[in-house]
């Protein structure tokens, strides 16, 4: 980004538009500071054409070399020897990207004795499966998985890699990206192909969901990104589809980290991401005891209990119930928000829900900007009435 100080009037429109606070007005002229990320928001705000958008980056890769990377990969994370939901979601979205690029979609599967999953991978859209089977991959390990992924990338040279933004996905992806020395975009909520450049346009929330940023990785390959579970919908599996299995061998590596044991959570795990119905409560519930109403309604509807960050921070609910930018991203069929004002970071985690019902005392609460149905009222009156209605309806 360049500022032409002859054209600059010092009006400050650019400084106001900058999401990073990276512009200052000095001596009646705009100046950029270290915080500038070249996002270009200032250039569109300037009425005097004094700002020329454009990247300061000149670490240009060799075009020929970049073009030798082909195909879209989806890292297939397992849970108890089954594909995680997010892997299927990424196969569906990866299929769309691959079609648009006119290239292949491949799944990458590391595990012990997991070849039987191949048909499911093909049915969900992959043309190819890179399969690495070895007892050492029976459990996720950062060192071993990083070594294997890096070797596969260097051998088969994919243009794009998608990983689920799970605990292990967010552990593996940055380690691999740093070893390959390529760009990685975290927690994407939108993926498309940039028409101008043919690159993957990775869109993600930042500043606690207050703004969205679209990121490109122009001069490094593969272009890598993680995507949260439930952001994309899985495709209807086509059992007639077939594909090619590539059995890859990787060099044996030992891990510097030794696994001792795993302890499953004793309490029944809160599976918000897979819930079809979520009833969530916020500070507007008034007191922790009122959460019993939220739980009662959730139970009645066969759903899960969600919570806003405010009530988790206040200790009313455990952190694994938290929905939002720093909690879980959810997309149930119905989301009932009770006494949640709708801080932007909460909205970022639930606005993909099919139907949102909001109950809040404050008619100007931001939750109503994403809700389909809104009730302005006291949750402690509306919830008992609703519970009663549903009991009668289902009796």
């Amino acid at each position, binding site marked *: 980004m360049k500022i032409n100080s002859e054209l600059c009037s010092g009006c400050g429109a650019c400084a106001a538009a900058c999401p990073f606070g990276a512009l200052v007005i000095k001596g009646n002229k705009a100046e950029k500071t270290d915080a500038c990320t070249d996002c270009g928001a200032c250039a569109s705000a300037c009425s005097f054409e004094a700002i020329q958008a454009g990247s300061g980056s000149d670490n240009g890769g060799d075009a020929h070399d970049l073009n030798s990377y082909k195909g879209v990969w989806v890292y297939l994370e397992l849970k108890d020897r089954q594909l995680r939901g997010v892997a299927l979601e990424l196969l569906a979205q990866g299929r769309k990207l691959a079609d648009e690029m006119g290239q292949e979609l491949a799944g990458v599967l590391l595990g012990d004795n997991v070849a039987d999953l191949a048909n499911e991978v093909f049915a969900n859209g992959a043309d190819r499966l890179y399969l690495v089977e070895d007892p050492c991959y029976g459990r996720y390990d950062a060192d071993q998985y990083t070594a294997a992924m890096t070797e596969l990338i260097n051998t088969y040279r994919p243009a794009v890699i998608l990983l689920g933004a799970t605990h292990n996905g967010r552990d593996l992806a*940055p*380690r691999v990206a740093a070893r390959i020395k390529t760009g990685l975009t*975290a927690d994407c909520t939108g993926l498309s192909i940039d028409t101008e450049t043919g690159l993957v346009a990775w869109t993600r929330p930042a*500043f606690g*969901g207050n703004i969205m*940023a679209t990121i490109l990785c122009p001069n490094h390959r593969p272009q890598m990104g993680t995507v949260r579970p439930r952001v994309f919908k899985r495709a209807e599996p086509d059992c007639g589809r077939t594909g090619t299995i590539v059995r890859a061998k990787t060099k044996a590596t030992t891990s510097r980290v*030794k696994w*001792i044991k795993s302890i499953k959570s004793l309490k029944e795990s809160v599976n918000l991401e897979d819930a079809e119905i979520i009833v969530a409560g916020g500070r507007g519930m008034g007191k922790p005891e009122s959460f019993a109403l939220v739980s009662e309604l959730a139970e009645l509807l066969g759903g899960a209990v969600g919570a806003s960050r405010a009530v988790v921070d206040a200790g009313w609910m455990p952190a694994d119930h938290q929905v939002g930018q720093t909690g879980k991203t959810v997309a149930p069929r119905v989301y009932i928000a009770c006494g949640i004002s709708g801080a932007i970071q909460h909205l970022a985690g639930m606005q993909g829900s099919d139907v949102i019902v909001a109950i809040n005392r404050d008619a100007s609460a931001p939750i109503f900007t994403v809700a389909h*149905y809104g009730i302005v009222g006291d949750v402690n009156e509306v919830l008992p009435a609703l519970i*009663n209605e549903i009991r009668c309806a289902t009796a």
Partner: protein
Amino acid sequence: MKIVVCVKQVPDTTEVKIDPKTNTLMRQGVPSIVNPHDKHALEMALSLRDQLGGSVTVLSMGPMQSQEALRECLAMGADHAVLLSDRAFGGADTLATSYTLAAGIRKIGEFDLIICGKQAIDGDTAQVGPEMAEHLGIPHITYASQVEAGADGAPVRVHRDGEEGTEILEVKLPVLLTVTHYGDGPRLPVVKGIRRAFRAEVDVWSVNDVEVDRNVLGLKGSPTQVRRIFSPDKRCGCEMIPGDACAAASVVATKLRELRIIGVGS
């Protein structure tokens, strides 16, 4: 035990408001804070030092005002503070940031443990920790909730929060950990600490003070580039349901019935 804790000064994103007219971020009056997860990382480090002896150095990269965040860490009990600050570091993505921090750590010298917050609340990437470990050639463990240190030189046991429970892992030092939440949460600064923090020197290092390849620093050395920034979509057209609690509840029940969430009432 020699521990380095990486911290970031961030805008308090829970206080950020959107200007409804221009649909842009209103930054005025948004306080700068120490990234909350980093405070948990610091608490883990201070607890280990209090128990085993050694020192805790806090390291940050950012503009000069990040010194305030480092002073807050000194007030909590950190022994030394280092700020990497230079125009050349600015505009960095996670790969360039982690590279720069790794260079800072090399200059700090010997260390046993590096502890980072799980992620910063402004960027929310959770990438800088593992990437830094890779630059330094040491193992990492993310989502660490507990560390049991043994005798000098013995491996440490780390509890890692996973998707379905906790993993107990053992690793030889040095290692890098990232922390979401530690124990009862970060301690408050004590008066003695605050006084000391005022007097203490924050070492400020520029690009000339660290051994780096200038081509992979800052905006210029970042593989990812921000193409566009925009406000999240706002849905309009929320249907407000009128009436008192009972009337409204009845309408919602009808909607749920239409959606076949509850029985059709037969």
